[in-house]
């Protein structure tokens, strides 16, 4: 019985969509990601918090775009040809996380995920669910709910 449980556990794989905020490689469960796009023509909202880049129309839905770098206390995301929005659905609302660059999709086993250190590449540990070692780097798994929590107050 115990053995059976173990095999089930070891089968639990998770796919991470990875992206860069500055130099920090972050990941997010791909199932939480609605889509990734590069719509950058957004409407700025006066008086909005600094990390809010604006809103854009995603097929009739208003999406709030958040500069993830800024939100996590790093430098602002610079708009380049690589800049992308990761659209996630948080509490029935679409939020776009603007990141510097998209990385590969990384498959990893759930049990290889370790608890996060206090700080990953200058970002506070509380924003992460955990870390996982990739081939030659460390991926911090972003806790989207935690990142967006302050917005829901």
């Amino acid at each position, binding site marked *: 019985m115990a053995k059976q449980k173990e095999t089930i556990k070891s089968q639990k794989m998770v796919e991470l969509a990875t992206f860069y905020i500055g130099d920090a490689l972050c990941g997010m469960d791909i199932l939480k990601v609605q889509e990734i796009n590069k719509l950058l023509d957004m409407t700025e909202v006066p*008086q*909005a918090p600094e990390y809010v880049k604006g809103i854009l*129309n995603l097929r*009739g839905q*208003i999406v*709030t775009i958040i500069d993830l770098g800024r939100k996590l206390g790093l430098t602002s995301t610079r708009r380049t040809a690589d800049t992308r929005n990761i659209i996630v659905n948080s509490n029935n609302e679409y*939020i776009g996380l603007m990141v510097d660059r998209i990385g590969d999709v990384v498959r990893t086993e759930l049990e290889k995920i370790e608890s996060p250190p206090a700080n990953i590449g200058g970002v506070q540990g509380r924003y992460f669910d955990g870390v996982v070692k990739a081939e030659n780097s460390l991926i911090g798994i972003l806790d989207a709910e935690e990142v967006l929590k302050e917005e*829901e107050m």
Partner: protein
Amino acid sequence: MSESNRFMDAYRQEAEELLSEIEQAILDIEDDPEDREAVNRLFRCMHTIKGSGSMFGFDAIAEFTHHVETVLDKVRAGLVPVSKRLIDLVLASRDQIMMMLNETEGHQKPDTGTRQKIIESLNAMLFESENDKTLSAEKDIGRPPSFDTTQGKDMTYRIRFRPNREIFSRGMDPALLLDELREMGDCSIMAHTDGIPSIEKLDPESCYLYWDIILVTAKGINAVRDIFIFVEDDCDIRIDIVEAAEQNVEEPVPRLGEILVERGDVIPETVTKALSEQKKIGELLVDSGSVSRGKVESALIEQQRLEKQRLSARVGTVRVPSDRLDKLVNLVGELVITQARLSQVSADMNHAELVNPVEEIERLTTELRDSVLNIRMMPIGTTFSKFRRLVRDLSAELGKDIALITEGAETELDKTVIERLDDPLVHMIRNCIDHGIEPPAERKKKNKPETGTIRLAAAHKGANVVITIEDDGIGLDPDAIRLKAIEKGLIPKEAELTEKEILSRIFAPGFSTSEKITNLSGRGVGMDVVKKTIESLRGTVDVSSVKGKGTCITLKLPLTLAIINGLLVTIGDSYYVLPLATVEECTELTKEDVEKAHGANIMNVRGEIVPYVRLRDHFEMKENKPDLEHIVIADVYDKRIGFVVDHVVGGHQTVIKSLGPAFKGVKDVSGATILGDGTVALILDVNALV
């Protein structure tokens, strides 16, 4: 959510609706104790609450309601008179049941003491009525024992009970109903099995049977109907009185065909047809000349018409979760936007074959939008009825005599608006009762009728609904308000204000002129909350008053929250929408105008000085300022204020989308909308901009 939880929620929802109906019914009875229909309605509601309560495990409610029901049954039978005590008790019971519903949600601790007291009073009432009856029995011989004429003597009922297929999934067992019928008297039941499909198509959880029941009982047709009270909405139930057992003996027993016809198993047409096919009676009749073919046919047509009528009379209702409706409204909003874009493209292309279908789509879209928005509309009367209770209870508590007159209960408003209106209306009506209307003695001294009147009226006015709350009480005293406002630092001492401006101070936070603080009002929170709520619904509040004569508060609300008429403007590269309802005029702001004002943000519009806000500066936009700017003059808090923009684009049907929680701190923007070309425009809140 688990299955049983879903049922419990459904019960709770249903019970709440029934409770408000109970309240309404009992107040109707109070107005007119002879209102039999209301008594029956009341009884049925209680009965349903009890019955479905025990079915879904709300045993405490079922048990408590049973006591109320027992008394109401006697009321229905005319054995217990309608009295103030009875009405108070029923109202108290209603509140108890409401509390019990909340208890099961875990909000409150059970209040068994009050419950017990109510039950005791109810029982006492029953006991008295029993005594009464024996005492007055001799005097009251002439009075019929009940108003149900079928009660008391043996009657034969023919019942066709065809349950809904899904009856089992609703937690009902038809067999139990049949058992109940059996207990009522001599009863023969026949099951019809012709609805049962072949085994491979049979769904074991559906009910394919239906029954014919012949019941002889003395209990009266109401008692028979009550058995089916929980299932009558979705099952096919026909109860006919066949004959009174003791009479009609001489009449011939009806023929088989007639019985079948009367039972509704076959329509006469079929019988005639069958007969004509077998024995050719129809043909014979026609042949023999006793009935013309035309007559037979016209009879058949009449038959068909009756059938059709019966079908069309059944207008059902469907319960839909409101988020699905919201989604629908949203989608229609999108459709409106896309259609506007299509019309634009078609106009640009000027293609002859395109024009027609595009116009057709425009018409259909408008119609669709109107009917979808209509789904969300509810008559405001549902809220009004709640206030009858409020007025009744509060005026009794304060020893005042107050009548509530409601008008325009059928006026329809968006459901969300109605829900949000609840608290402000309660507050304002409390104000009327507590501060507005004087005690009877004082009213008499002032030569006013002793009964005070509060008038609550709703009416359509253009794209708005206007709700007025009017009382004939002491009215507002502008001098007192002025003094109080100065004391609280709300207006400077030397300010010269019109009476209207002074009166509007009652909406300032922390304002109350009443000396005493009662548990109803006078704490100085209130009117500002009322104003805030109404403004959040994009409405306005207005107050007028004549000292000594009364106060009138007018609420003006938009019909719907989903779509507004907006004025589209641009500032820099961005589009903004100003609510058209507040816009008074648009004009140009030339360089000369600016120079004349010597740096002050004011402008002379036909001799009137209008201050303005430069939205460009307000939003800190620097780049490419045009030489000629435009100014939109809006009415904000009864003052004309200009908003300087780059260009005025024109009117725009604005489908409002709310902004996310990240924009909580943004006061100037109340929402966003998507324009025809897909860009996003921000909707400005003019009240906040000033």
